[in-house]
């Protein structure tokens, strides 16, 4: 009797995972994962090390080929495509424009020896921007948006603190206005005080830009603050899924109850 509520812009899923599995030899790292993600929706994948959450992220972002199942993505022209059917050039184009990928270690997502401005500008040049002034202006705007002192634009990120590096990595990813961002433990290597600032920043950017995001984290506080929905993984399987506050406040599965009850109060 309850009809689904839809709004015109987000009634079509952006990404659909269908029966995704990945085996490494005899190890089933990821088993039969299915879900769909809508534009503007933030999904957290939580679980301990070895639960398969990072493997799943690699499958979803086409960095690993699944042993079974498929990932489909709605391209900017509105057509849903199976990622496995994309050519290498198309996949690379997705990565450069419509997707972002924020690594836990900023050194993996940045070029540490070139300037911050170039790190951001490079993504724009990759999609054909060639006017130096416009690239620099846009890079400047993005450094401001991620709260990096513009006076540091010509410095290389190897001279930046961990928190600044992570903010720079986010700017580099968002400058091409992606619709989907993958994040792998985005606050993982940072001090707690730096984490709070980064989380607040990410939360605002995600909602202002109506970004969809898939965030892998072992930190339930990160999931609560950033995500609308959560998937709990254990042994390669999704064991519980739902609205984030529902899963965290009313966990149903034994393992989820264990995770939630294991948080030490500050």
């Amino acid at each position, binding site marked *: 009797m309850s009809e689904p509520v839809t709004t015109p812009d987000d009634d079509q899923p952006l990404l659909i995972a269908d029966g995704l599995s990945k085996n490494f030899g005899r190890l089933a790292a990821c088993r039969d994962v299915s879900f769909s993600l809508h534009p503007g929706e933030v999904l957290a994948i939580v679980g301990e090390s070895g639960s398969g959450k990072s493997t799943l992220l690699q499958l979803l972002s086409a960095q690993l080929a699944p042993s079974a199942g498929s990932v489909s993505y709605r391209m900017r022209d509105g057509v849903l495509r199976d990622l496995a059917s994309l050519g290498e050039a198309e996949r690379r184009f997705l990565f450069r424009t419509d997707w972002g990928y924020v690594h836990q270690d900023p050194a993996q997502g940045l070029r540490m020896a070139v300037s911050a401005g170039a790190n951001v500008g490079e993504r724009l040049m990759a999609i054909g921007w060639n006017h130096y002034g416009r690239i620099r202006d846009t890079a400047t705007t993005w450094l401001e948006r991620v709260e990096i002192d513009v006076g540091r634009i010509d410095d290389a990120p190897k001279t930046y603190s961990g928190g600044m590096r992570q903010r720079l990595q986010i700017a580099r990813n968002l400058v091409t206005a992606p619709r989907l961002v993958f994040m792998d433990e985005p606050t993982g290597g940072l001090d707690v005080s730096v984490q709070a600032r980064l989380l607040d920043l990410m939360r605002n950017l995600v909602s202002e830009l109506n970004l969809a995001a898939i965030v892998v984290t072992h930190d339930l506080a990160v999931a609560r603050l950033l995500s609308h929905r959560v998937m709990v993984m254990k042994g390669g399987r999704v064991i519980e899924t739902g609205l984030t506050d*529902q899963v965290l406040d*009313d966990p149903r599965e034994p393992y989820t109850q264990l995770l939630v009850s294991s948080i030490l109060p500050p």
Partner: protein
Amino acid sequence: MTAMIEISNAAKTFTMHLQGGVELPVVSNVSFHVEPGECVVLSGPSGAGKSSILKMIFGNYRCDAGRIGIRHQGKVIDLSSAEPRQVLTMRRATVGYVSQFLRAVPRVATIDVVAEPLVAGGTPRAEARDKAAALLRRLNIPERLWRLPPSTFSGGEQQRVNIARGFVSDLPILLLDEPTASLDAANRAVVVELIDEKKRRGVAMVAIVHDDEIRHLIADRIVDVTSFAAAA
């Protein structure tokens, strides 16, 4: 159905897997409805399941059996079977919840904590801040505090920030969990006024209040939760 909230035979049981799978029945056969412009107060002793019922109506706790119908944009959503996305849309456009404690994001200024539900609903930030400021003023939060995050405020101040955040938007349903618990008489009176204004605008409310005086002032009907708990 003209009711904004229509609950029939809703039930909730916690299964505590870490305690050997103990079943903790919270409520069962919860049935009541709330009309527009009406404030229903849940009564019953501590532990009877009043807060759990509010959380179920907000979609924060899952409903194990029965039905929780919410009138949302002209349609009825049944929370016992709704998709997460539907629950989120429902919270954005229809159901507000004033919890007992403020759960604020570190670093966010009080005025923005209060304005956030409006901004999320599409109101321009400047206009949202104006409305937030008006409410903070009514609730006697000094203007010098508005730029600060509320995490360092006193319990009563935090609760007033929480109330401002809950009352700032024009949602047709409002759930209030002890909105006056740690407030002084003057601020309690403000909250009673705010609730009256919401009623006049047709807002359907469900409230938990322990203070008898406040309960008499705001309740149009009282639903005794004890019967739901006893049946569990």
